[in-house]
């Protein structure tokens, strides 16, 4: 599904850059440069609002307030101000997050994606990770079309990673979710289980990446 984004930014250079970048990422972007225009929009027809605070016409915080009164749509604030009071005010008025200028386009996209992904993140029961298909509820793992046989604890490790596919998962979290933290040297035990899991995954073993100092990550995209 293509997400519709309402971008309100009065600086034409920055506005065009952000719009282009978001469109390249596959979003449908409506870009407004005036606060009053933004007030006239129906916020519920968008997936997310990206809002500058210093606007001609209605002030950004007023747009935010009006949007909050009318819809549950997430709001991301773009702020040139590095002042805590402004951020706190925006968050209190119902903004979900903010990005302080100057920002990288990638940074903004990451924040938008994080916001759009949030609902229902842990509800996913069937996770695709490259050639792997992990059905958490049925406790089944497919490599391509072949079903793999994993030991229960190995599956638990994989399922814990699958719940946060694409994100680094701290080893301590895995230990707490899967192993008995009170057992002797549980970190070492975890590493042993991961090593066995990778062996069984065969060609797909690189889908389970080691994250420096943090732990492991199940890569969402196929790793060659």
């Amino acid at each position, binding site marked *: 599904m293509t997400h519709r984004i309402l971008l309100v930014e009065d600086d034409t250079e920055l506005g065009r850059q952000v719009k282009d970048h978001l469109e390249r990422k596959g979003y449908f972007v409506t870009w407004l440069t005036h606060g009053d225009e933004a007030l006239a929009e129906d916020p519920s027809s968008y997936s997310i609002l990206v809002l500058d605070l210093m606007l001609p016409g209605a002030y950004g915080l007023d747009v935010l307030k009006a949007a909050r009164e009318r819809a549950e749509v997430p709001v991301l604030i773009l702020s040139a101000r590095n002042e805590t009071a402004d951020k706190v005010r925006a968050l209190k008025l119902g903004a979900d997050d903010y*990005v302080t200028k100057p920002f990288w386009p990638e940074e903004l996209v990451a924040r938008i994606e994080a916001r759009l992904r949030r609902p229902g993140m842990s509800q996913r029961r069937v996770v695709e990770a490259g050639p792997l298909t992990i059905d958490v509820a049925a406790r089944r793992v497919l490599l391509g079309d072949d079903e793999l046989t994993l030991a229960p604890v190995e599956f638990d490790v994989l399922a814990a990673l699958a719940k946060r596919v694409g994100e680094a998962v701290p080893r301590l979290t895995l230990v707490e979710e899967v192993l008995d933290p009170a057992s002797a040297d549980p970190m070492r035990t975890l590493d042993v289980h991961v090593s066995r899991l990778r062996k069984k995954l065969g060609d797909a073993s690189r889908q389970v990446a080691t994250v420096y100092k*943090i732990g492991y990550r199940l890569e969402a995209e196929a790793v060659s």
Partner: protein
Amino acid sequence: MTLRLRLAAGILLTAIPLSLGVLYVRAEAQRRAVEAELREYVEGAMQAGGRWLCELFPQRFGGEGSPMGAWQAEPPPMRIELPEGLNLPEGFELPPFPGADKIPRPPDPKPGQKVAIWAYDPQFTSANPKARAIPDALRSKLEAGERFAAQSFEWEGYDSIRVVMRMDWDKGPCAIVMAERQVEARLAEGASAVVWGVAILGAAVLGIVLLLAGPIVARIRSLGDQVKTSARSNYEMPVEAKGSDEIAALARDFNEAGRLVREHVESVEARRKTLQDFVANTTHDVMIPLTVLKGHLSGIHEALAAGDAPNDESVRGSLREAQYIGSLLHDLGAAAKLDAGDVALDQTDVDLGALVHRVAERHKPLAHSARIQLEFAVPEADVSTRGDVTLIEQAVNNLVHNAVRYGDEGGHVSLLLGETEGRFTITVWDDGPGVAEDELKRLAEPGYRASAARTRDPQGAGRGLAIAHEVAQRHGFELAFRRLDEGGLEASLGGPVSVRQ
């Protein structure tokens, strides 16, 4: 109205009702005294022979007179007059009126004033045709069973008192006696004495008060002059505050207020100076990376114009400098805020997961261009702490910025938020060149001055870490550095989590 005038008016306002009150009480006492006097007289006179006389010659008993009293005006007979037609034999005299000279005289009025006495039978009728009728008010009181009644009335322009009383015997033409007396002169005389007394006393008190108020007024004037002088010296010069009375307290309060004003002015001045320095330093510091950035960009432009691919190092340099400029501006903002003191800290609940996410995403493009793998992880549950979100974010930002900026190509930087036993920890690891032991000690030294953050240190970690230290100290967080055995540096920021609502 000046203080003295106010005091005088106050005394006058007190004296007037006071004298009226005294006058009233005095008049009342006098009235009672006259009533008692008349009553005593009537009782005494009637017992001492008045009754005998009255019952014998009721049609001639009583009268009014001045100044010697009713008896003198119409003196009682010294001898008994026989009824008409009855004659005594020649040479025979009736004995003298027994005890007539013993009948007491009425109480002495002042010269020119009158007294009167009349007798009545139980039906309030007098045998003496000259007698005044008993006023209804008194008569009804006696009819109601009282034995004595009195009233004030006006008699020939005088304030006067009249008493009516039943005698011990209830029969005969003298069962009820009324006595009257003019008293106004005595009352008026008393009143004028009181008025004079009050006037003299008031004048004396007024004089004393004005005399005492003199030094007070002088001190207040002097305090006023000193306040003006102090204000001209921007409250540097305190006013004199000797003594323990209200004026001294006022002077002390003024000195305290002056101190607060001075402090406020100083703090405003300090902030203005901070702002001025901030602008000057920012301009200076931003110019350097901007110049470098312009150099890179013109190199890229030249290459593109010549149809060549831009130099990779120029592109990466541009990204690096752009990131540096942003980071620098945030550092300078944070430094200004830290310099301004505790008042500038905005304490709120800070969502550390979102904060770590923001910092990591901000550095990914730079890390990517430097071929450094930047990773981060946050717990699923929210972790928050109390503090200033801008400053905490800048502190974490600087830890990550240093790790990325000074990391080796192909290296790793990891950022992890964890929570255990009511404390959060944000750890930043890198596998870069690390730091020497003595430099590590320097990093771990708290109490960097924020101004040190403005020094561009191309080699090292001083600038941003000084801010991180200061932020940690202000929040009561711990900032620690550790060399990793396998090389690289671990920096960790820890502190209490805020209680979830």
